[in-house]
């Protein structure tokens, strides 16, 4: 697994969590939904590249 890519994903999700922690814009279900879509999109891109 590409460590750099993984770290970027980690930072992005953490930043979004941090933001949501402060704003409470999304509930837990909403955040799960967003993370799921993001990770699936990243995985799909990687799979299509192969």
């Amino acid at each position, binding site marked *: 697994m590409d460590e750099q890519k993984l770290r970027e994903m980690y930072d992005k999700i953490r930043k979004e969590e*941090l933001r949501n922690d402060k704003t409470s814009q999304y509930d*837990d279900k909403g955040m799960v939904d967003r993370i799921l879509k993001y990770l699936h999109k990243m*995985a799909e891109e990687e799979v299509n590249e192969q």
Partner: protein
Amino acid sequence: MKFKQITLVNFMRYKGENTLRFSTDDKMNVTAILGNNTFGKTTIAQAFRWGLYGEVTTTNYAKKEKAVLLSNEIIAGLDVNTPGEVRVEITVSDKASDTEHEYKFVRRQLFKRISQNPNNYDIQPVSNSRLSVLISADGVPSEEGPIDNDFSRRHPAGYVQDMINNMFPEKLSAYFFFDGERWNENKNKTDEVKRSINTILGVSSILKMKEHLKDGSKDYKTTVYQRLNRSIKGSSKESQDLKSKISANESTIARLEKDLEHYGQDYEVAKTDKERYAVILENNRSAEEDQKELKNLENRIESNKRRMEGNYRDFIQLFSKADKLLTSELLPSVERLFSQLDLKGKDIPGVTSDTIDWLIEHKKCLCGEELTPGHAHYEALMKLRDDVYPNKIGGPAKLLQSRLNDWANESADLIDKMHHKAIEYEDFQKEIGEAQMRSERIEERIDRRQNLQDVRKRYNRARQNEEEATRKKGETTGRIDSLKNNNHSLNVQLCELEAQDKANRPYVRAIEYVNALYEIAEKDIERLERPTIRELNDIIAGNFEKMFNSKDKYARLENDYKIHMYYRSLGGHSDFEETRLSNGELIAINFVYIVSILELAKKRQEKESKESGVLRLPLVLDAPFSNLSSENTHLVANKLPEFAEQVIIFMLDKDWEASGLKDYTLPDYCYRIYRDFSANSSTLTTDGGEF
């Protein structure tokens, strides 16, 4: 980050516009607002909360959903069609770099009266509150102008609220908006302490990430991990199973096809044999029948011979018992002789002539009478002597007569049987003769070298073999067809699964991401949490010592996330925990914790970038010393300017004197609240403390 100014417009008991400017001086960093109880100190603290977060809280920190935000005096002047506006403006200054950035946050909301009844003061909001910010750099407003939280062309909805929460996280607001009454309560604050530390470190976001990725919480169970797993349809294991089944079926088909070939060969052999034997049988149809009849005749001759032999044995046996026949010619003469004897009525059982002679000789009858010649008994016996059998003939003669009768009967029966056997013997002999004659005739006709019965057996076996081979061929063909159909169906499923596997790949990969990200999050928490607790304890120990000016006691945050106080040495015990804290000690410890948390946040900010979620906060204190003695008030208060970035404090006059905060407060930043009891409203002036 410091508060520069707050303006309240018709907010609760503050009618019209009331502005408070706060000291942003680095050393004289205290702003004091003095006022008696119920004059409106807490209302200003509420204005901060509403201005920043759009809500107010009660002293128990429950949300005041139905708090009346609009000033009563304003409400009294409204009618149902004319709304009144509540507005709070908070200006924040950030001098993190050479440039001073100012953020002027404005929250406003319109309300109107529900009823035209002049005595009904109930109001309702016309719409939700609106939030905006105007950003300036060194006093020059940005060209963009005010940015609306909900309606901005350049920024996403929630942008302004997001900015506020980055500066002053609502979850930490219990610390920098300090409510004295609340903190006096000695209650378990473990979760709050944990949460505050996590917020300062930015760990709360990592914990949330962990929750969302895999852990879930009591409120929701469906994590990213679970949803990804649910999205995967079928599996590579299923594909593998299908491939194994197809392969096994193909092996079986190959084996069955080989069997089928053998059954075909068996069939051909059996068919050829059957046809060959059929030709032989067809060509010898009459001969076969003759052979059958001949066989039957031979069997019959053989059987009759055996019966003749039996008959002969019976005859011999009868003849061996025929000795009586030798004397049978004498019997009629003996019978004639006996017929001349008068044997009728002369037979007295057991009495013969010898018996009577014996009685006469002894001259006494059996009945006891004397026997003398001339007497009646004597004469009667003499007469009887003439009638009974002579002693040597009577019994045997009678027995002989009886035997003679038996012999006559047996002789007649024996002759009958012998005669019958003789007839049977002749019959068997005759039948054998006839059969032999017929056999001779048939033998003259047929060729005995050819065993047609054996051919018939072979023919039948070949026919059975042919049928068996046909049945097995049919069965095997059926099984092969069935397996081929099964494989076709399995191949279709395999194609579908392989297509599904392709669709699954991104989900499988995303699950791998989840696992890897979860692992990083765990390591990050480990990396951040432990050293931080150590660091926080060092800060707590230092602040406790400063605040209490005491060397014999110390405070420490333990693993239960509670602050414990210890005596270094007491009654011969070292590190002796004091479990019965006085009210003053409890408040002081809480202060130590609060300022330590803020100091930790400050230190973290120096270490890390803003992206990490580390904070730098002012301290807004509402009646913090209301339950402290003058001595303790002084002890705690005069340390606050040192610990906090900025101190804004609402307090009673009596505490102001005791606090000694005058030394950290510029005259322009000491306010006093006045209350107009007739109008139930308050106003602010800058003639607070005496300098």
